C-alpha cells in the first residue's frame, strides 16, 4: 500500500510537470506574439514603397520561407484555382509551404472567430459578402457585424498603403473592405445574386421569348410547364438559395435597395403596404408555382448541375455558378450543351426596373494582425493581385472583376457587360438590412419567399403583416 501511495505522489508530480510544461508553451506563444507585432510593424513600414505592384511582388517574394496558413470557403472552381495558384507560389518560393483549409461558407464567421482568436490562420477569407451590413446612422439598438467585431478586436491587419491595394478599383476597396479609415480586406470580386440563368434553346423549343416583365415570366413558366419541362430550380435543400433566388424579384420592385432598408427603419415603407403586398404575392407564386418540387432535394451546387441537364428553363441564382455551365478551358468539367445567358430577374411590370443587377462584394482576403509571417502574407496577396493572375482568377470563378484592367471573357461576361457598362450594378438588400434587437424571426421580409416554400405561410397578406409586425416589435423595443 505504501508503494501505491508513492505511485500516487509520482502521478501528481507528473501532472504538475505537465501543467508547468503547458505554462511554458503559453509563454512561448506570448513571445512569438510579441515578435509578430514587430514583424507586422516592419511590414507596415515597407508599405510606403511606391514601386510598381508587380516589382514589389517579385521583391517581396525574394528569400521567403515558412508556412502560410490560408483559409478559403468551398466553391469548387475557386478551390481548384487556389490550389493551382498555391502550387505555383510554392514552386516560385522553394522555402514556402502553404497550408490550405477549405471550409463551408456558412462556417466562415465561426472559423474566422476561433482561428483568428487562436492565432491559427495567416490569410483568410474573412467574408463572402464584402463588408456588408454596416450600421447606418438611422439604426439604433443593433449589433455590429462580425467583421467589425474582428477589426475592433485588433485581429485583422490594416492593409492601407500596400502597393497591391492600388490594383483594385476604389469602390471595391472603399465599399468592400474598408472601415474607419483602414483597409482590412482585399475584395476579389462582385457577384450578382439577382439574376437568373436562361436556357434559350428550351425557350425556343417551347416558342416563347426571353421574358422582360413579370407577366411575361408567368406566361413563359406556364408555357414551359405545359410542354412538360420545369420552369425554375434552386437549391432548396440548403434553404438560403430559395430566398436568394428571389432577391431579383425584391430588387425589381424596390430598385433603391438601400432606400428600402432605410424606409423600413424610418417607417416610410412597410412590408405590408401596397408594394409590400405585391412583393409577397409574387414571392408566393415564385416559391409555390415557379420552382420545381424537386428543388427541395437539391443543394446549391446540385441545383445548377440539375439545371445543366437542360430541361429547366430558368435558374435564379448567383452569377458565381456560371462556371458550372461554362467551365474554364483547363477544367475537367463539361459545359452546358445549350445556349444560355444571365439576365436580371424580371420581377417588375416595368421592363426598365428589370435591367439592374443587384449583388454584393464577394470574397475578401484578410491578414491576421499577429501573423508570424507577415512578409509572406503580403507576398502572397501581391502575387495574387498581379493583373494577369487576378484576371485568370476572376474568369475562373466568374466574379465581376474588382480590378479595372480585368474583364470577364466568357458567356457570363458577355451577358452582363452591357448592364455593367451602364453602371447597372448596385449593392443589394441583403447587404444593407439589419434587424433591430427585439425584432421577431419574421422581420426580414427579404427572406419571405422561403416562408412560402417551407409552408410557414400560405397567405401573402398574412405573411406581409407578420413581417411588418415583427420588424416593428424591434423598432419600438
Amino acid at each position, binding site marked *: *500500500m*505504501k508503494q501505491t*501511495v508513492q505511485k*500516487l505522489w509520482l*502521478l*501528481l508530480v507528473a*501532472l504538475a510537470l505537465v501543467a508547468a510544461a503547458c505554462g511554458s508553451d503559453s509563454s512561448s506563444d506570448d513571445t512569438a506574439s510579441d515578435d509578430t507585432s514587430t514583424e507586422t510593424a516592419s511590414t507596415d513600414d515597407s508599405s510606403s514603397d511606391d514601386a510598381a505592384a508587380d516589382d514589389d511582388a517579385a521583391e517581396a517574394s525574394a528569400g521567403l520561407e515558412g508556412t502560410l496558413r490560408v483559409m478559403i470557403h468551398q466553391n469548387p472552381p475557386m478551390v481548384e484555382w487556389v490550389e493551382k495558384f498555391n502550387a505555383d507560389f510554392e514552386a516560385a518560393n522553394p522555402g514556402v509551404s502553404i497550408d490550405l483549409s477549405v471550409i463551408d461558407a*456558412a462556417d466562415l*464567421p*465561426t472559423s474566422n*472567430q476561433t482561428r*483568428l*482568436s*487562436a492565432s491559427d490562420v495567416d490569410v483568410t477569407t474573412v467574408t463572402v459578402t464584402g463588408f456588408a*451590413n454596416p450600421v447606418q446612422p438611422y439604426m439604433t439598438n*443593433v*449589433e*455590429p*457585424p*462580425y467583421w467589425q*467585431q*474582428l477589426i*475592433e*478586436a*485588433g*485581429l485583422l491587419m490594416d492593409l492601407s498603403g500596400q502597393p497591391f491595394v492600388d490594383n483594385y478599383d476604389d469602390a471595391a476597396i472603399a465599399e468592400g473592405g474598408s472601415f474607419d479609415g483602414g483597409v482590412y480586406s482585399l475584395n476579389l470580386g462582385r457577384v450578382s445574386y439577382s439574376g437568373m440563368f436562361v436556357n434559350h434553346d428550351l425557350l425556343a423549343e417551347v416558342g416563347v421569348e426571353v421574358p422582360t416583365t413579370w407577366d411575361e415570366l408567368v406566361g413563359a413558366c406556364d408555357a414551359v410547364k405545359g410542354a412538360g419541362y420545369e420552369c425554375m430550380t434552386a437549391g*432548396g*435543400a*440548403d*434553404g438560403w438559395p430559395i430566398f436568394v433566388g428571389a432577391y431579383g424579384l425584391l430588387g425589381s420592385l424596390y430598385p433603391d435597395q438601400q432606400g428600402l432598408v432605410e424606409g423600413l427603419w424610418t417607417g416610410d415603407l412597410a412590408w405590408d403596404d401596397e408594394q409590400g403586398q405585391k412583393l409577397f404575392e409574387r414571392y408566393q407564386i415564385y416559391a409555390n408555382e415557379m420552382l420545381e*418540387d*424537386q*428543388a*427541395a*432535394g*437539391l443543394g446549391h451546387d446540385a441545383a445548377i448541375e440539375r439545371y445543366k441537364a437542360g430541361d429547366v428553363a430558368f435558374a435564379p441564382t448567383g452569377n458565381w455558378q456560371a462556371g458550372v455551365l461554362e467551365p474554364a478551358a483547363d477544367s475537367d468539367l463539361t459545359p452546358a450543351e445549350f445556349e444560355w445567358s444571365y439576365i436580371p430577374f424580371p420581377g417588375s411590370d416595368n421592363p426598365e426596373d428589370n435591367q439592374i443587377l443587384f449583388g454584393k462584394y464577394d470574397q475578401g482576403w484578410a491578414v491576421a494582425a499577429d501573423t508570424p509571417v507577415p512578409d509572406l502574407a503580403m507576398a502572397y496577396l501581391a502575387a495574387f493581385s498581379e493583373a494577369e493572375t487576378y484576371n485568370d482568377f476572376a474568369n475562373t470563378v466568374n466574379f465581376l472583376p474588382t480590378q479595372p484592367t480585368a474583364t470577364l471573357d466568357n458567356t457570363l461576361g458577355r451577358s452582363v457587360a452591357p448592364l455593367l457598362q451602364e453602371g447597372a450594378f448596385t449593392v443589394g438588400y441583403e447587404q444593407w438590412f*439589419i*434587424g433591430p*434587437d*427585439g*425584432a*421577431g*424571426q*419574421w*422581420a*426580414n421580409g427579404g427572406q419571405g419567399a422561403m*416562408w412560402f*416554400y*417551407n*409552408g*410557414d405561410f400560405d397567405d401573402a397578406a398574412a405573411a406581409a403583416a407578420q413581417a411588418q*409586425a*415583427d420588424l416593428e*416589435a*424591434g423598432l*419600438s*423595443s
Partner: protein
Amino acid sequence: MAQEHRNLFSGGRRRFTPWLLLAPGLGIYLLISVGPSLATAIYSFTDATGIRGLPISWVGLDNYDEFLLQGARSRDNIDALQRTLLFMAVVTVVQFGIGLVMALLVNQNLRGRMFFRTLFFVPVILGAVVQGLMWKLFLRPGGGPMDTLIGWFGLESQFLTGPSAFYWVIVVQIWANAGFTMVIFLAGLQSIPSELNEAAAVDGASGWQLFRNVTWPQLTPAVNTNFLLNIIGSLQAWILFLVLVGYRNGTQVLGYVVFAEGFGQTGNNTFRQGFAAAASIVLFLLVLVLGMTANFVVARRERKYLG
C-alpha cells in the same frame, strides 16, 4: 497487508487519504465541468463576444431581459422553449416505450437475438452528425429512398422542408437513441432473478401479470435511469436540428438558439456569447427544474417498489 491497511488509514492520514485519492478526479471535474459552467453563468451578465481582444462589459440582466421579455424576439424564444418541452415530452415517452419493447424482445431466448441487439444499438454509436446525414439522404426529395417509396402511391417526400420537419427530427432522435434505452433496460431485465418469474408462473400468473407484478417493479432502477437520461438528453438535443433542418423559423429548440446566437449563425452573423450564455442558463434552469422533479418522482417510486 492488513497491517499496511491500518497504517494507511490510521491517525491523521486517515482523514486526508480519501481527499488525496479524490484530488485528481475532482481537479479535472472542477477544471472542465464546474469551471466553464460558472464562467457561463458570469458571462451571461456581460456582452462577451468570444473574440479575443474585444472588451467585455457588465450588462447586468439585459441579456435575460432581451431573451425573455423584449419585443417579438422574446415570443420566438418562448416558442423555442415550448418546442423544446414538446420535443422532450414526445421523445422521452416514445423512446422509453420503444426501448422497453426492444429490450423485452431481445431478452427472449430467440434465435438471432445477438444480431438484433447489435442492430438496435448500432445507431447509437454513429453520432448525431452521421445520424442526421443518413436521414437527410433517406428523406431527400427527388429520388431519395423515401421519396421513391411513397412515390409509388403518388406522394412526394417534402418532410424536411415543410412544417413536418420538427416531427421528423423527433423521429430521428428516437431512432438514434432508443438502442441506448434498450441496453439499460436489458441490463435491468437480466438482473432480475429467474426464480421470481418461475415462482409466479407456478402460481399461475399470466404473461401480463408477470410483467406488471414482477418484471416492472424489479426494473425500477433501469426505469428511473432511462427516465432521467431521456429527459435530460432530449432537452439538450440540437445537433440533429442543425444537420437536418438548419436554423429555420419555427423549428428551433433552445439548444440550437444558444449555438446560433453564440457563433454568428443568426441575422447579422454577430457573435453574442454573453447573450447565448444567458440563453444557456435558461436552458440549464429548465433542465435543473425538470431533472430534479423527475428525480423526486423516481426516488419516491423506487422507495415504493424497492423499499
